[in-house]
């Protein structure tokens, strides 16, 4: 009776559609595995989301722009509505960008959203990367995902570069000329590569259409693939979390993807879109109509790339213009050396996870994040790298710094040259000391409690401040981190008293490991005995 009624029951339309899809795609098992996926809550875990959403915004607006942009360098005479350019000869690419800005409905806003979102996309990727770096989230099992993220950053930079070069305006043309100079500085292969890229002598008539394919097809395609892989790995590894009561290396404490994170993430997408749209509606970006069409015989001061390429500009501006003659060939070292340092700066941060795990010998899985203060060497290194990066950005904008602060551009360049070497070292030392200071403060808080600001006078006249003891949860959070011991070489003699051969590599590693985890890199956590002795005794200090 009941069985017949069940078979006869007409399922609701939604269920029938879902059944149909499940029979072909297997979505039920997929959804079962992932819908209740837990994500921990922390604002810094949403930095990657900012990058993801701005990437989506870039793709949406980019598609609209392709409908009106003509990737061609054919020369035309401008007859559009922008008066100061009427009658000027320019490439079709530049003319169509002027049309997008002045004659296509909503074109200028979409262009500005596209460009602002690009700046924010790469900034968000860098900040997200720094979050992962400083909290040690790149450790096993996430090293590959770190590399995927790094590749996304580098590809993002070059997608941006090829993108802002498309309008063929005087500013971006100067940037392409800069790139051509860098390629030419490469010994032997430079001229061949330049001719290959530009289809002959610079600027030729090809680079806009070539950059266009690279910008809208090749690089975004690769990035899309990497992005999917990046997200799949986040699901596969599960999200990291900060230490806290109930949080272990084997669980994730947080909220489920559905409904909580779907709602939050969906809402956050619209917030990101909204903020980028407001900025694009309020502030001008890359006003190509003011720059003029590119002509190799013209150039303007204040010609800088977008910020993410700024450090390459800084390298060139800070580098002395050395040029030597080697076996009858001119070597433009003033350009070639910066060209070699450019990938190095990026590589240093990319390979860091592997270097760290080699030095420390730590091959375990980590799902609990470090607080930056508890790993002073890593934090110091990260701040040193950022200092390096920022010094190069300053060098790249040396002329504007000179104008705004009424200084000599030469002094700023010299500052950058010296700071390039000294700055990171100072930043490392200072950061490490600050980290140790913060560790001391934590230790103090654990043992003596939090300062309450209440002053008490004792019967014999002494004034003391009342310290409130921390809660059990806070005590756990502050002491959950592990304090590592440096990797040792092991005994130098074997059980028979014969001297063991120690490889140079191992010696170096032991030395580095000592520098990493050695006694001057941490303030010992209070032991249980210490804690009991101090808190168990008299109530104040």
């Amino acid at each position, binding site marked *: 009776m009941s069985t017949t009624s069940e078979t006869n029951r007409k399922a609701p339309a939604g269920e029938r559609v879902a059944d149909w899809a499940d029979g072909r795609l297997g979505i039920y098992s997929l959804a079962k595995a992932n819908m209740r996926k837990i994500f921990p809550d922390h*604002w810094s*875990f*949403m*930095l990657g*989301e*900012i990058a993801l959403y701005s990437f989506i915004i870039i793709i949406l607006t980019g598609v609209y722009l392709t409908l009106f942009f003509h990737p061609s360098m054919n020369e035309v005479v401008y007859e559009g509505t922008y*008066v*100061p*350019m009427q*009658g*000027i000869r320019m490439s079709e690419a530049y003319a169509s960008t002027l049309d997008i*800005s002045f004659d296509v409905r909503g074109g*200028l806003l979409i262009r*500005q959203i596209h460009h602002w979102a690009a*700046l*924010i996309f790469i*900034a*968000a990727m860098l*900040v997200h990367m720094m979050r992962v770096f400083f909290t040690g989230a790149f450790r096993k099992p996430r090293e590959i995902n770190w590399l995927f993220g790094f590749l996304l950053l580098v590809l993002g930079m070059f997608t941006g570069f090829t993108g802002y070069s498309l309008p063929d305006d*005087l*500013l971006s043309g100067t940037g392409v000329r800069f790139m051509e100079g860098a390629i030419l500085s490469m010994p032997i292969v430079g001229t061949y590569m330049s001719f290959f890229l530009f289809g002959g002598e610079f600027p030729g008539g090809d680079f806009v259409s070539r950059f266009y394919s690279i910008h809208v097809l090749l690089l975004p395609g690769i990035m899309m693939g990497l992005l999917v892989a990046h997200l799949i790995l986040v699901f596969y590894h599960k999200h990291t979390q900060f230490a806290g009561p109930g949080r272990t290396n084997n669980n994730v404490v947080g*909220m489920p993807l559905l409904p*909580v994170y779907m709602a939050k993430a969906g*809402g*956050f997408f619209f*917030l*990101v879109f909204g*903020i*980028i749209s407001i*900025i694009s509606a*309020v*502030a*001008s970006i*890359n*006003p190509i*109509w*003011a*720059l*003029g069409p590119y002509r190799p*015989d*013209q*150039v*303007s*001061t*204040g010609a*800088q*790339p*977008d*910020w993410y390429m*700024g450090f390459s500009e800084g390298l060139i501006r800070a580098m002395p213009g050395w040029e030597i003659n080697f076996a009858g060939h001119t070597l433009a070292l003033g350009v070639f050396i910066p060209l070699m340092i450019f990938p190095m700066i990026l590589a240093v941060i990319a390979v860091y996870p592997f270097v760290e795990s080699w030095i420390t010998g730590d091959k375990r899985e980590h799902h609990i994040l470090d607080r930056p203060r508890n790993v002073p060497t890593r934090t110091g290194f990260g701040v040193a790298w950022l200092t390096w990066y920022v010094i190069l950005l300053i060098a790249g*904008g*040396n*002329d*504007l710094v*000179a*104008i705004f602060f*009424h200084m*000599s*551009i*030469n002094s700023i360049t010299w500052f950058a040259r010296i700071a390039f070497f000294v700055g990171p070292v100072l930043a490392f030392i200072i950061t490490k000391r600050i980290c140790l200071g913060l560790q001391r403060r934590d230790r103090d808080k654990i043992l003596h409690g939090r300062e309450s600001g209440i002053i008490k006078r004792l019967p014999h006249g002494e004034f003391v401040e009342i310290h409130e003891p921390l809660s059990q949860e806070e005590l756990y959070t502050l002491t959950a981190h592990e304090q590592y011991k440096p990797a040792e070489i092991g005994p130098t003699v074997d059980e028979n008293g014969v001297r063991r051969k120690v490889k140079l590599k191992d010696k170096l590693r032991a030395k580095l490991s000592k520098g990493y985890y050695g006694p001057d890199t941490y303030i010992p956590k209070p032991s249980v005995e210490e804690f009991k002795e101090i808190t168990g005794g008299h109530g104040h200090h």
Partner: protein
Amino acid sequence: MKKLSARRRHPLAAVVVLLLALAATGGLYAAFAPADKAQADDTAQSLAIQEGMKLYTVGCASCHGTGGQGTSDGPSLIGVGSAAVDFQVGTGRMPAQQPGPQVPKKKVIYSQSEIDQLAAYVASLGAGPITPTEKQYSPKGADIAKGGDLFRTNCAQCHNFTGEGGALTDGKYAPNLEDVDPKHVYEAMQTGPQNMPSFPDSTLPEQQKRDIIAYIHTVNSDEAASPGGLKLGGFGPVSEGLFGWVFGLGALIAVAVWVAAHTAKAKKS
């Protein structure tokens, strides 16, 4: 003759002779004296030069020398012309406050008539570019687009795409051209003040100067339109990057903190 000789001894004869003699010398002087000083229409010019010289002695001679020949503190002014004086003094650059890589623009302390007198004096020291008339520098009816092209060819490498200014070596700079008087822009091109090269009419004819002035006025003045919104100084990617980081990413991180702080809390209901 009889009459004359008869009155030879007249008591007033001496007076008459004296009058005749005075009239003769006066007449002769008027006939032979240097002509220019006697011409009535040049008096204003000579007065201006005289007044200008007085102003020069007080305000300029300490650096440029008593006769405009220049000293170790200031260049010679012989041959710079009235246009140079009108520019330097008319924009407040001269008299200079202190030595430095470049003399900045400041409050103008001379009236236009005083500036004209100074210019007349300096122009009298040697021939040079003459202060332009309004017909020469007026941007009315000039070709803006052509001016833009000329500006990017000749001016942008120091003054930036739209004349926002830029840095030169050792603390020198190309100033912002926003709302600079068309006359002063013209004079600057004509005379090449301080670190600027000069663009005489042989390089940049009058019409082209007017085109450039019209372009600057269109893209960098009170009336200039910024179709994209805030101009952010017009300095390009550096200011855009700074704005993007501070206001773009800054706002997004603030929102992220806000979203993370408002979560579904299972414990507290």
